[in-house]
């Protein structure tokens, strides 16, 4: 009996494991299931990535670069004034007074800007005209000088021809005269030889003739001397004239060179100014970018897009800041057509203000940064 009880007790405590299933296979299966789930989650993760990309919230675009180029700003201001007028017509019931004030201010600003633009453009045109005129004059002067030089050369050539012709003529005349004199002298000698008897008679005549001949010779010599002197004088005059022309030419050339140098210097100065302006603009651009990103982030976070807003809505606000980044004025540059959407955008800017980061910007750009446009487009978000 005790043995049996012991037996049954022993049996009762001994587990009947053969009836059970082992634990190795279930463990392997369980680990396999978990690995499978992990693999599926890893595979399906890229598909879920585009959803997470939408977390790049609101696309509020800053158009503040317009503040650095006068003309664009004027255009935008004019547009702003126009749009503001349209907006006043649309929202006349609610914000009529504010809008009108704003529109007036903008119109005034636009007119001012327009005048400035007109002046600027006039000044530019004048400058261009002056440059053109200077160029034309220089060209004209150069042409004139060339013409004069040509003319002078022609004249000199003509004169030289004349002188030579005269000289030739004179030389011929002299030869003739010499030949005549020789013949005469020969005739006289013959006559003297033939008519020695008559020599005495004709001594007087001969003396006379000789005197005449001498006189004639003297006259000829004188004439020759005179011709030589004239020739010399003419040559001198021509030399003088040539020298003068050369001097004139040199002077003109120098003047031209000086003018060219001046023009080049002016050009260089202009280039340097442009480079400096470009550098300044770049620096300003960088400052503006860093500031606008801050503003954009802040506004994006504060923006509660109205639930009914469609993707295609697009509103542009113009914001004027005070020196410490507080908001002076918000105006709708371009309404989206949905008043609740516009109001949500304005509220977002109001919530995000003040932009104290303005004081951290370089002081020379602060004035430019105090006015900028913000564009609100929910289209990319959803």
């Amino acid at each position, binding site marked *: 009996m005790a043995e*049996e009880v012991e037996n*049954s007790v022993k049996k*009762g405590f001994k*587990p*009947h494991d*053969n*009836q*059970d*299933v082992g*634990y190795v*296979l*279930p*463990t392997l*299966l*369980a*680990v396999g*299931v*978990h690995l499978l*789930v992990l693999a599926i*989650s*890893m595979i399906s*993760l890229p598909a879920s*990535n585009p959803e*997470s*990309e939408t*977390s790049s*919230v609101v696309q509020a675009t800053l158009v503040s670069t317009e503040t650095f180029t006068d003309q664009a700003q004027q255009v935008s201001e004019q547009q702003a004034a126009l749009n503001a007028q349209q907006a006043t017509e649309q929202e006349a019931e609610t914000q009529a007074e504010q809008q009108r004030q704003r529109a007036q201010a903008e119109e005034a600003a636009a007119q001012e800007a327009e005048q400035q633009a007109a002046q600027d453009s006039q000044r530019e045109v004048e400058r261009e005209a002056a440059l053109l005129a200077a160029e034309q004059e220089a060209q004209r002067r150069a042409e004139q000088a060339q013409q004069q030089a040509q003319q002078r050369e022609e004249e000199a050539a003509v004169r030289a021809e004349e002188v030579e012709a005269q000289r030739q003529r004179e030389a011929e005349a002299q030869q003739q005269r010499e030949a005549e004199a020789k013949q005469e002298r020969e005739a006289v000698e013959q006559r003297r030889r033939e008519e020695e008897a008559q020599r005495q008679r004709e001594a007087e005549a001969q003396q006379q003739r000789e005197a005449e001949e001498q006189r004639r010779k003297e006259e000829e010599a004188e004439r020759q001397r005179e011709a030589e002197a004239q020739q010399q004088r003419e040559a001198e005059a021509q030399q003088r004239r040539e020298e003068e022309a050369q001097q004139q030419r040199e002077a003109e050339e120098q003047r031209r060179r000086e003018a060219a140098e001046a023009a080049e210097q002016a050009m260089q100065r202009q280039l340097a100014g442009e480079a400096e302006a470009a550098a300044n603009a770049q620096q300003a651009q960088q400052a503006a970018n860093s500031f606008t990103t801050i503003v954009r*982030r802040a506004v994006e*976070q504060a923006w509660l897009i109205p639930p009914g807003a469609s993707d295609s809505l697009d509103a542009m606000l113009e914001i004027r800041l005070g020196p410490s980044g507080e908001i002076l004025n918000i105006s709708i540059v371009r309404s989206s057509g949905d008043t609740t959407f516009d109001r949500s955008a304005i509220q977002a800017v109001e919530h995000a203000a003040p932009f104290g980061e303005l004081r951290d910007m370089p002081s020379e750009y602060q004035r430019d940064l105090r006015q900028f446009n913000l564009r609100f487009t929910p289209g990319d978000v959803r």
Partner: protein
Amino acid sequence: MNDNGMSIPHLIMSASTVVQVVMLLLLVGSVLSWVVIFQRSLALSKAKREYADFEETFWSGVDLNELYRDIPDEEPRSGAEHIFKAGFREFNRLLPKTRNPQAVLEGVQRSMRVAWSREEDRLSRHLVFLATVASASPYIGLFGTVWGIMGAFQSLSLSQQATLATVAPWIAEALIATAMGLFAAIPAVIFYNRLSSEATRLLGRYEAFAEEFYAILHRNVQGRDTTSG
């Protein structure tokens, strides 16, 4: 950020220690619950199959003494076999010792009830663990999430700019704990219900078999009483 920072492994690795411990706990719970699920499913289907086999042999008109001798002494193959063996052995032992059939039948019934309750214990083994995982893991995961979000807000108070992008990874990694808790709990709940109902049904069949066997023995004792008396 989107590709690398928000992937689940990266989030888990960058979570705080408490959250990581919670996640590890939940992972272990999930693995163990799946081990139990597979083990129990296999064991129950095997038990069902063997019960069907045994019932077929039992009702095929075989001699009960032979059947009793066929069953290995130490390790019966199925629950019904175990019950049959316990009852038949008690019957054989008590019959020579007492003349009172009532006492014999009581002893047989008691030994069969003991065997049945052991079978019940074996069939529903580990199912309690499934129930525990099913009910506790969502709370554990929630604890991890709450802890992670607490840490997120603490660090948020220290940072200058509180953007959605700075908070998002914290919250995501905190929420992973809840997700893991649910991941462990949902299959545990489903399979606990399924397996426990299956075990209960099998035990009901065991009970029915025990009653039938008891009826046979009872008939046998009554017949013997009339022949001897």
